């Protein structure tokens, strides 16, 4: 049984769990996935990579940014059977570059093989600038930057 009280201009409602069991009848406006104003995920509606996705952290903007972009672009557009198999050189370049900056890219295993590794290689990057609700990236691989507020709470 919910309880309601008014203190001047402020209204206070106490609700029990049962009160809130029934689904809400509040109407929300449907979102337009192609809204140009909205923050985009990792992959833009037109299929391009959103290099500014918070989920990438500083990967595309750091000293090895261009190598990372080349490698990941190659991988993304790869039509080979084994996706990205022709991108070995790009990934090697990227890895070599990253080895020159161990402080920025803490060395992890198999960095060349998947995007998720490289994205998680800079976790500090991600959390520092994660604006709270980064739209979940389209590719499930990149999961390093969650939308959880506690992440933002302390890390931001």
């Amino acid at each position, binding site marked *: 049984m919910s309880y309601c009280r008014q203190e001047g201009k*402020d209204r*206070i409602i106490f609700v*029990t769990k049962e009160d809130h069991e029934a689904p809400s009848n509040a109407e*929300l406006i449907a979102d337009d996935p192609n809204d140009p104003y*909205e923050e985009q995920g990792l992959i833009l509606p037109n299929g391009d990579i959103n290099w500014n996705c918070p989920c990438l952290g500083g990967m595309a903007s750091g000293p090895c940014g261009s190598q990372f972009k080349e490698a990941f672009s190659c991988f993304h557009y790869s039509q080979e059977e084994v996706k990205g198999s022709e991108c070995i050189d790009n990934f090697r370049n990227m890895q070599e570059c990253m080895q020159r900056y161990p402080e920025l890219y803490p060395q992890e295993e198999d960095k060349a093989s998947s995007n998720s590794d490289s994205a998680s290689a800079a976790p500090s990057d991600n959390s520092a600038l994660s604006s709270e609700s980064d739209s979940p990236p389209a590719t499930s691989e990149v999961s390093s930057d969650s939308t959880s507020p506690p992440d933002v709470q302390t890390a931001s």
Partner: protein
Amino acid sequence: MLTCRSVWRKLAPLARPSSAVCRQSARRAGLNNGRIPTCVPAAHMSTGPAGGGADNVKYALMVGAACIGGLTYAYLTVKGDQQRYQERITEIASRSSKTATEEPAPIQSEPPAAEVAETEAVSEPEPEAAPSPEEPSPPAPEEEVLSPEAEAAAPSETTAPPPVDSTPASLKVPSHAPYLLIGGGTASFAAARSIRARDPGARVLIVTDELDLPYMRPPLSKELWFSDDPSVTETLRFKQWNGKERSIYFQPSSFYVNPEELDRAENGGVAVLTGKKVVHMDVRGNKVKLDDDSEISYDKCLIATGGVPRNLQVIERAGEEVMKKTTLFRKVEDFKELDKVSRSIKSITIIGGGFLGSELACALGRRSAESDLEVVQMFPEKGNMGKVLPEYLSNWTTEKVKREGVKIISEALVKSVTCKDDKLEIQLKDGRSVTTDHIVAAVGLEPNVDLAKSAGLEVDSDFGGFRVNAELQARSNIWVAGDAACFYDIRLGRRRVEHHDHAVVSGRLAGENMSGASKPYWHQSMFWSDLGPDVGYEAIGIVDSSLPTVGVFAKATANDTPRAATEKSGTGIRSESETEDTAMSPVASVTPALPVNHKDEYGKGVIFYLRDKVVVGIILWNVFNRMPIARKIIKDGEEHADLNEVAKLFNIHED
């Protein structure tokens, strides 16, 4: 043009002993650039035009000859200057390293005519055409003369490109940056990242007057205080919610490129010029001037100058003794100083009951548990966060802050502060007084709009800060982001926001727009605060306690109230109406539990702030991971008949 104007200037003093002939000859030389009226002194009028008489003719001829002689001389001088200048430029270009600090003396050692107060445009580039190590060091006086000249020239000159782009006076400062970011805080860093992500190979130069690289501010009043590490003031590392440690610096120094090398960096990069303040902005010429007189031209510029903590007038007027014992908290060095001070004193008072004041009070309060530090917090409102939270919640929060070991003095207006026997005495307007060792003033932020005047940018009179449009633009190639930006929010109207996430969001947006996008401020930023173990909230939108609010809280179930405890034991509090009865009973000690129950029930919930029946702000009170829903409701901007239904979307009873 350059020559003409400079020659005219050189001519001016010669023209002063006036005569119409002189003026006419100047005109004939094609120097009709509008300067003539100002240069023609009143004295001229008194002599009148050259009239008849042989004497006059002779006089006119002499003056005319002198003018022509002067003109010729000036012309030769300027030519010589230019030649030497060109030589210098080629020399600098071929040189590989710069070590000099000298001004190009020989060029400046022209006869006095060249050093007249009216600065020649040509001499202006010289200070910038800097110095070569092989040049003989100039006598100091010449340098003195040079700077005022350069200063006079700078605002008015829009000279030919080569002079401006030449190597600057100070060593490390690049002369041109395609992307220039003024200010080295959160907004600036976010913009830099955004630009680099979108514009491959971009060269971004951040200029900051701080000595630190870009860092996050929130931990300075929260996490850093709770660290177990005794060297935290040096390492500036803290533990995140997920247990992982990180530094407050966004990136270690290896991320950045050296400012000197920015031009040459193959793939561009972000360079940070620390310890330099931008003091003047020339929007027409697309360049800025630093406090060391060097200039940097830009293609696109971001102003992210943030703000400076406000102080109480009574403290400012109280004199140096008081000021020495007062901290205005904002930067890393303030944190270090406060940490040190708080360990050695007995009593500290925080003036201000907003975010910063309350967070610092809680942080210091927690520390007081281990030491015998007395922590006092005073503010004019009735309770902590009085301008943000509705009164009932503000009062509840104040109780929580008290439990963190803070002595709260509410409804306190400071009348005066004096220093007596090495202690501070704060007199309040209602007669109360507090004696303390140190004061922290957390009474707001003054946005830094120092550049508005020289840049000719608009400053907002309601909110302060630079006035920018919905795309954060002040001019076609100037953007403003962060605390200093008063922008137009399409949903919520014009506002200025001083939160960390806003700095990130607006910085990122500005960076996107600087690199070609045209997006307005749309993704609503949020903010959060933690006050002790019981109070943590996240908020979004306009959260102003003067707005009508609707708060929906999870009712504490019968199981977890003091009431349950008493019922179990057989005592009989059953309903509110029985309060008076039970007050007389032996279990009187538990009766306050009933009204207190309702007070304590603000455990978790969601509070809506309304403006014209539309939700413009939401606080998630001890309820986490639901910010996207809150953001959506604000974005929709709809009128909802029953906010309880909207509250259902948040599922506040779950964790």
